[in-house]
């Protein structure tokens, strides 16, 4: 199944991309996707990376076809 991934800030810079569509195994969890992409792009300080699935901060969910998964570095508004 397909999931739409978005990368922001420092993560987008490290991954050298801001979006991609990935084909993943049904039943993959957001947490597993996070670990996989962090290894793939060698993203530093993984504990500081938060995942938003369909705009909700949550790594505990199982992904579904068409989900939007955002990789978010620490917030820096203001």
């Amino acid at each position, binding site marked *: 199944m397909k999931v739409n991934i978005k990368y922001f800030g420092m993560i987008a810079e490290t991954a050298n991309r801001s979006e991609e569509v990935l084909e993943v195994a049904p039943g993959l969890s957001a947490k597993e996707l996070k670990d996989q992409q962090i290894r793939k792009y060698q993203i530093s300080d993984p504990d500081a990376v938060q995942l938003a699935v369909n705009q909700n901060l949550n790594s505990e969910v199982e992904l579904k076809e068409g989900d939007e998964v955002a990789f978010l570095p620490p917030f*820096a508004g*203001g």
Partner: protein
Amino acid sequence: MDKKKPKKIFVQGAIAPEKIAQSIANHQSKTNIGAHSIFLGQIRADEVNGKTVSAIDYSAYEEMAESVFHEIRETAFSKFNITCAHIYHSLGKVKKGELCLFVFTSSAHRKIAIEACNYFVEEIKSKVPIFGKEIFEDETHQWKTNK
């Protein structure tokens, strides 16, 4: 109702002082207001390892930011007896000395306006997915993190 209207939080580039004056002037017809509290974030020329910040380039997960911001706003209106609230944050490059955040709350009484303003500032800093690239004078950069 001011409260219900969906509001845009993001503006391109720095927030002009004239925009703040205009916002204030717009409230002179609301004669149930007794107090306004305003917070402004300004870009500091911080020194890091001998290099000086010349600008911050802001980006955001905009759709999520607008929706988180809407929730913050709803919560603020349920917690505080404010008459109105206006919040703007910059996207793109904001130079040192320029303004990147404008929070403006109003109420009949000062304590409510002030508390609500602080609430917005803290919530925006901790919950809204905005990212900042600190650009140094030599064009190198580092990523900003809220403490």
